[in-house]
């Protein structure tokens, strides 16, 4: 019978990423609630050291799946290997971090079980043995409680930051590491080495004040308004992804998971809804101001000061007032 929780440990360039420990914390927490043991899975080629690192955590066992085709990540290789591990371990629940890598192969894995993922969860709570997963929908505007169908295994991924990596508990003794020689079929994708684009022209991480605009600004011609406010405050202009996608501002002014991560003293978000991919890039700012005409916009969740209203009314007045106060 299906039993226990399997947690996928993701590594890149020889190290686990933080979200792996968040996933372990999530699995341990759920395991305690539904009284099930946690087994961690590491995939790789000659990487048993990494498996030993995970064995220090409070898990029943670590399965280290080894195959030379797993030296580098590919969706074909990882889906094949994980499928073998899941079939062998026969867990009730498979927990994974919602990273780009997991997004790339885990739906394929789940499909082999005629299933999908309960993806990008923020919380999971067990009541009477039934786990209720909560995930954000509508770009952060709403939450949905979701329950799984009856058949095991249930695949769930957790949003980065949903659990704290420090909460991943260490074990009193090292857990057993079981090495599994997994079969991997033909791998159709050929990866080239990962790289970073040439250095950004603007380094927003050094700015004390950032005035960021989102789709609420409506058109490129309105950016002048924002620039005059930035000038008055002595700050830099930044933007959400759609503004850079549209070419209204260069990509090096984009804040968020695929842009820059900043922590200025002051961050003013104008007409930005507050999708998680934006929030991860700025939530550590000292003072956060949000201006949005929608009172339910998720950006207000993390704002110190909020104005519910039209940014085209706010910006000119704010610019004038700042100028006056600065003398």
């Amino acid at each position, binding site marked *: 019978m299906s039993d226990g929780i399997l947690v996928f440990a993701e590594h890149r360039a020889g190290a686990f990423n933080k979200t792996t420990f968040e996933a372990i914390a999530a699995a341990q927490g759920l395991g305690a609630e539904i009284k099930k043991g946690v087994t961690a899975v590491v995939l790789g080629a000659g990487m048993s050291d990494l498996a030993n690192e995970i064995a220090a955590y409070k898990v029943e066992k670590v399965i280290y799946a080894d195959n030379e085709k797993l030296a580098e990540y590919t*969706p074909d290789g990882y889906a094949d290997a994980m499928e073998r591990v899941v079939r062998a371990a026969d867990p009730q629940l498979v927990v994974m971090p919602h*990273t*780009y890598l997991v*997004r*790339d192969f885990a*739906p*394929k894995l*789940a499909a082999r079980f*005629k299933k*999908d*993922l309960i*993806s*990008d969860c923020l919380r999971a709570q067990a009541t009477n043995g039934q786990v209720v997963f909560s995930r*954000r*929908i*509508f770009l952060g*505007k*709403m*939450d*949905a*409680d*979701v*329950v799984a*169908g009856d*058949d095991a295994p249930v695949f769930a991924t957790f949003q980065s930051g949903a659990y704290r990596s420090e909460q991943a508990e260490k074990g009193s003794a090292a857990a057993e590491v079981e090495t599994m020689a997994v079969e991997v079929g033909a791998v159709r*994708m*050929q990866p*080239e080495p*990962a790289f*970073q684009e040439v250095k950004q022209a603007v380094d927003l991480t050094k700015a004390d*004040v950032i005035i960021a605009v989102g*789709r609420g600004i409506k058109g490129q011609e309105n950016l002048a308004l924002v620039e005059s406010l930035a000038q008055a*405050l002595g700050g830099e202009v930044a933007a959400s992804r759609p503004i850079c*996608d549209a*070419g209204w501002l260069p990509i090096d002014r984009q804040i968020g*998971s*695929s842009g820059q*991560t900043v922590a200025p003293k*002051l961050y003013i978000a104008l007409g930005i*809804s507050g999708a998680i991919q934006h929030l991860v890039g700025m939530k550590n700012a*000292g*003072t956060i*101001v*949000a201006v949005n005409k929608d009172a339910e916009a998720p950006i*207000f*969740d993390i*704002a*110190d*000061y909020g*104005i*519910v*209203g*039209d*940014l085209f*009314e*706010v910006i000119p*007045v*704010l610019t004038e*007032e*700042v100028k006056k106060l600065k003398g």
Partner: protein
Amino acid sequence: MKILVLMKQVANKDAILRINKDATWIEEGDLSHEVNESDGYALEEALRLKEKGGSGEVVVVSMGPQRVKAVIKDALARGADRAIHILRDNLSQLTPFVAASTIAEAVRAENADLILTGLQSDDHGFAQTGVILAELMNLPHATIVIEVDASGENLRVKRELESGWYQWYSMPKPALLTIQSGISQIRYATLKGIMAAKKKEIREVAAATDDAGQASQRITKIYFPQKSKQTQFLGDGDAKKGAAQLAEKLRTEARII
């Protein structure tokens, strides 16, 4: 090259969302809709690949009720050659595995060289339908793609990784790619395009109706997220007053001015 593009219709980003009576989805009656953001970029990429290749066909595939015709017609006006509309009334409890299975059945006979989808839907945000479809159709895939080179024997695509990293992948065709927004600048429909679209084929396909038993997940409740921070709201609905108060707060409390 024959390219299929999956395009989903979702609630308008600026729409005020209201929760329905049994709190399992939003009230859809008077809602305005638009095309899912990344799907618009997937279409643009398909049109560009066809233009670069000099020949081929771009086929739009959308699943949903009659209202999704708006998305289809707009895509045809921008230059897609024809469309497949998979009729399905309610998408609110549709899981990605069932969605991908239904789409796979409807498009398998097309034998496309390339299938493009958006990287995730703006309503459910599953980020799975494309990848599952690739598995069901036995195609190699790549996700979060921001550049495509289809000129050679193999496809070469650039994927976005986390925190500013990228990676190129090669794979044989046919393949499926999930497209990240911003891959290129989206064209507008021209008047000529809108006129031409009227003559283009939209083939309707009925979706299997009874697949509730297969669902591996179900929404039991939706609600507005709990606020985690105490926000000081300024201006009391008067934006200008709020702006003046904010300037004062930035000086006295936040001490930034």
